[in-house]
């Protein structure tokens, strides 16, 4: 069941019909050697890692799954299946192990050991929780958020290293534990209460007969607590302004049922709502009191009790805000219920305090393509994909470490018009792809039944996510063009379509390489270096017109109707965005030491635009690092493909050959696999290579317009892109096919 890369039709059907789960992912290998389980009083939470096939770039995926503790047998069977799958494959590697934590780790330890037949290692519960939380804060982007009814899910930048601490963790499970965490692995249980999730569950099960915790939360949504609670207004007939109580404040939970004169008619749902408020309010108050006593401002709420349930988060946030008079904020986590299990999983790999203080962060990305649990709450939970490489921020990024940098230019969650446009655009684009796949016009489509089925599965999957995002913009975290494009790539990978443009890229690259010698001869003929460089910069933009991602140009490209000269002729150059000449003058007068160029598309873009530009810089003595996606996305060139291209060009062209031989032309993977660019999350090897770079060049709409449009650098930077999309152009006050050629001096230079 787990395991084998399963791409049969049945699996695809399952994805299509919406019952897809993590178990059929084609890009996973099945070997699971370690499973962490956190067995609480109410729920057992399982975390495990699957490795991604090295052929697909390596890395891995962290999975999350929860069971009711009452049906622990199901949980044990699940774990057994996971570990048996791992063993069954090759019988190699380390002996499988279960890392158990939580109260039930002791109680069910023997059962686990006997039924699964593997070693069970027990980890301390609170140690695990804090390890898990520190891990999530440090490694997972967009994990932490605040909540308010009118402002759901505001994501909070968390700081890696020392700045993360101290914090307080309020873990709401069956009971409530309050921990003060002062550093990696350093924590103290400072308080707690036994009035937690177990209490709510026990009371509501008895009072309403609900059968599951989720059912209970669902029920509370439609409830009205004012029908069972005694409100301040019920007592005073209005506000009690003198002591700051509003008529709508709760005077006493369940107090309304004491007084028949109030004539309160109520349903089980009202009771559920009331008791949910009672527990949340009370926990919030106790949390605040602890934070106040210990002088801590960051209060994280965790534990499976919350489950991304809006009324719970709202009440906790309200309580913290109310009691602290707005001085503290309640912080929530997308993976709130899995702190213990996550921490237990990484218990033996917990970084030392020294390592944690490093800049390394956000090595995991949440993947929603096949969400592990499609719950009706705010926080749909994705799996966490581990990047094959450690990701760190570009050293030249201004405020990269302090969290002020936001890669996305537009927050689609907060802009309904832009959101509607982009969701619709993605839908159109997807349907277009599906049509091309169906009629065989997608280059590289092998016409096989399998490929067609995968394409259909992709379409169903992605369109379903788009619909959901249209209704619930923050269901998957911050909403941006980057997120939408990233999700599309994730969906494609998820159904086993790892590189649908492979053939298109190959063809375009061949065509472009054939034109290269002519183009080089033409540009080399321009004698004044500054004029030559200016032309080369403009050619980068011309090359960038060749983009399958731009709906407006796809027809022309597919028809082969776009040649390089024609592309260049279509570009318009608004003066305020055209710094080509200034850059050329500056760069030729005082050549840069090292330039990092974030490249975009394959074909004409990289071969005819970027490569001649890089060749010129290298000839001037600048060391050029070409940074390309580590894994495929759209028709973007990958680092592997680019290295190959450079190698081929070097054979024929002395300039490129010499630059390469002299170490002045290198290719490096960014660590990314999306059409946009988050400069906080770059392969640490690239960042190390660019440590002394004094020029950052970013090419393409996805990397320089949808993202990084406002990014500032300590060194000089050049952003090169063409507005190939009407909405993006409108948003920037530009016209379609306007060139963006912005040269900025570095903040540390000027």
């Amino acid at each position, binding site marked *: 069941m787990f395991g084998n890369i399963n791409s049969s039709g049945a699996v695809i059907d399952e994805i299509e019909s919406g019952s897809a789960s993590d178990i059929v992912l084609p890009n996973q290998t099945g070997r699971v050697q370690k499973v962490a389980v956190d067995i609480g*009083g109410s729920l057992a939470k399982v975390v495990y890692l699957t490795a991604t096939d090295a052929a697909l770039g390596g890395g891995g995926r962290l999975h999350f799954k929860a069971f009711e503790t009452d049906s622990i047998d199901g949980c044990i069977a699940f774990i057994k299946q996971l570990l048996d799958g791992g063993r069954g494959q090759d019988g190699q590697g380390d002996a499988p192990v279960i890392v158990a934590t939580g*109260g039930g780790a002791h109680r069910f330890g023997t059962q686990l050991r006997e039924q699964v037949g593997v070693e069970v290692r027990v980890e301390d519960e609170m140690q695990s929780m804090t390890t898990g939380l520190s891990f999530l804060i440090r490694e997972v982007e967009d994990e932490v958020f605040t909540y308010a009814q009118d402002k759901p899910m505001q994501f909070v930048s968390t700081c890696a290293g020392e700045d993360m601490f101290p914090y307080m963790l309020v873990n709401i499970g*069956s009971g409530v534990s309050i921990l003060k965490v002062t550093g990696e692995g350093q924590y103290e249980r400072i308080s707690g209460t036994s009035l937690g999730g177990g209490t709510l569950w*026990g009371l509501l099960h008895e*009072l309403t007969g609900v059968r599951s915790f989720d059912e209970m939360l669902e029920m509370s949504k439609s409830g009205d607590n004012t029908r069972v609670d*005694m409100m301040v207004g019920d007592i005073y007939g209005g506000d009690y302004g003198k002591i700051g109580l509003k008529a709508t404040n709760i005077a006493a*939970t*369940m107090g309304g049922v004491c007084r028949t004169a109030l004539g309160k008619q109520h349903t089980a749902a009202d*009771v559920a709502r009331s008791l949910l408020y009672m527990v949340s309010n009370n926990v919030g108050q106790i949390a605040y*009191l602890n934070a106040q006593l210990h002088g801590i401002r960051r209060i994280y709420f965790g534990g499976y009790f919350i489950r991304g349930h809006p009324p719970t988060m709202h009440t906790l946030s309200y309580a913290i805000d109310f009691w602290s008079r707005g001085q503290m904020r309640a912080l929530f986590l997308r993976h709130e219920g899995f702190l213990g299990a996550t921490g237990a999983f990484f218990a033996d790999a917990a970084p030392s305090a020294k390592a944690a203080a490093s800049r390394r962060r956000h090595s995991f990305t949440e993947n929603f393509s096949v969400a592990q649990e499609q719950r009706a709450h705010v926080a749909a939970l994705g799996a966490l994909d581990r990047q094959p490489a450690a990701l760190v921020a570009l050293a030249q990024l201004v405020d990269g470490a302090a969290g002020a940098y936001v890669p996305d230019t537009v927050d689609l969650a907060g802009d309904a018009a832009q959101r509607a446009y982009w969701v619709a655009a993605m839908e159109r684009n997807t349907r277009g792809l599906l049509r091309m796949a169906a009629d065989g016009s997608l280059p590289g489509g092998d016409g096989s039944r399998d490929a067609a089925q995968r394409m259909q599965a992709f379409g169903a999957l992605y369109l379903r996510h788009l619909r959901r995002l249209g209704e619930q913009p923050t269901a998957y975290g911050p909403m941006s063009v980057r997120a939408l494009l990233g999700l599309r790539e994730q969906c494609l990978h998820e159904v086993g379509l790892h590189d649908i443009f492979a053939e298109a890229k190959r063809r375009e690259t061949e065509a472009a390489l054939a034109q290269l010698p002519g183009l080089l001869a033409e540009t080399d003929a321009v004698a004044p270096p500054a004029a030559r460089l200016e032309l080369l910069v403009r050619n980068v933009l011309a090359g960038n017109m060749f983009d399958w991602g731009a709906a407006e140009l796809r027809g022309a490209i597919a028809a082969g109707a776009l040649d390089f000269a024609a592309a260049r002729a279509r570009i318009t150059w608004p003066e305020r965005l055209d710094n080509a000449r200034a850059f050329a003058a500056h760069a030729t007068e005082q050549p840069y030491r090292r330039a990092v160029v974030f490249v975009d598309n394959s074909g004409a873009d990289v071969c005819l635009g970027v490569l001649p530009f890089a060749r010129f810089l290298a000839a001037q003595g600048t060391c050029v690092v070409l940074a390309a996606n580590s894994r495929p996305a759209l028709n973007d060139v990958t680092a592997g493909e680019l290295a190959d291209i450079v190698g081929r060009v070097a054979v024929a062209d002395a300039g490129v050959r010499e630059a390469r031989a002299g170490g002045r032309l290198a290719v490096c993977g960014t660590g990314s696999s999306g059409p946009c660019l988050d400069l906080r999350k770059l392969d640490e090897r690239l960042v190390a290579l660019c440590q002394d770079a004094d020029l950052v060049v970013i090419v393409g709409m996805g990397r320089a317009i949808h993202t990084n449009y406002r990014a500032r650098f300590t060194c000089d930077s050049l952003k090169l892109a063409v507005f190939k999309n009407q909405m993006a152009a409108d948003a920037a006050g530009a016209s379609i096919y306007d060139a963006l050629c912005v040269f900025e001096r570095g903040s540390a230079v000027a």
Partner: protein
Amino acid sequence: MSLSTQEKETQRPTIGIDVGGTLVKGALTHLQDSLSYDSIVVMLVTESENTPNPEDYDRHAIESFILRWTSAKPDEVPSGWQAQVIRRKSRQISKDHVVSDKGIVLRILVFPTANLEQVVSMIAAQRPSERHIGRIRVAATGGGALRFRHDLETKLDIDMEMVNELKAVSYGWWSDVQDADTVTYPALLCNVGTGVSMISVDKDGGFERVSGSGLGGATFWGLAKRMTKFSSFNECILAAHREGDAGRADTLVGDIYGVKTSKEIGMPADLVAGFLGKADSENITDSDIAAALLRMVTNNLGQLVVFQARAMGIGSVWFTGGFFQQHVADVNRDAGTSSASDSAPVASVGSIVQNAASEAVNFWSAGKIQPLFSPDASILGALGAVAALSSE
């Protein structure tokens, strides 16, 4: 209100009512010997010598009503009602102000707020006619007093003088304990009625609400009412005390870890991990649930109040409010203070609740904060309303 100063002097309120969310507390105060109509507060200030003999005229209907019920035999008092007569020795108010050595008689009548309308009709019906001396002033407090003011004033022919509820409680408490040596200021009052208010009181009786909670007395009773067969608060508390085992309804550390492992990891197996976590168990009694609910509410109360005391840097906390009501009339009790530790071994409803709260405070403060109980915990609002109004 168009009473002249003189009228006000002659019509000092002797009746205080506290209309809470759940209960109405009425207090009628007078001196024992003369049956003076001067209130307790009048006594604190001055003693009128020309008070008429009560036999000389008809009582006001509302006074008659209270007299009637508080004089009645316990089994004649309606279910859910409490009536008691407390005789207290007068005391020295300040070093240079010795007042009467006569006793004070307090007549206390408590009934559910839900019965208020019915009670008002009863009083209105027995209102004496011609010989009636006119409207009297009633010191009123409690959220419900505002709400029902119009009804009460018109139907009972009284003038209600409103006193801020928290002021009434703090003033009632303050005038009750101010001469006790054990009191230090600021004092922290934890008033538990329907809900919970925590009040800081300074040495002059000034007060501030510093915290509160919606998890209070009515939460206990509201849940108990829905989850058990008990029809009255008293019955519920007594059953919880006599036959209830909270550990059967609460999830204990032992339930999670197993008794053996609990020992191994050094946690008491009977420590509560989740209140009421096993409320849905099969072999559980209503008394068990009542005991667990009481433990949940008082434990939480204790935790909140200990935090508050620590934040204020003080070593004791006073519990007041209807939740700690005394049901056994301690006749001729000395005015002053009593803490749970020296309360009578008799398992009165009040002492059961008090003990539970004491345990919680001891638990959360590791014995460092002392829980204290005012003798008239449940009627401080009504008393304080009279006192506060008369002091103005």
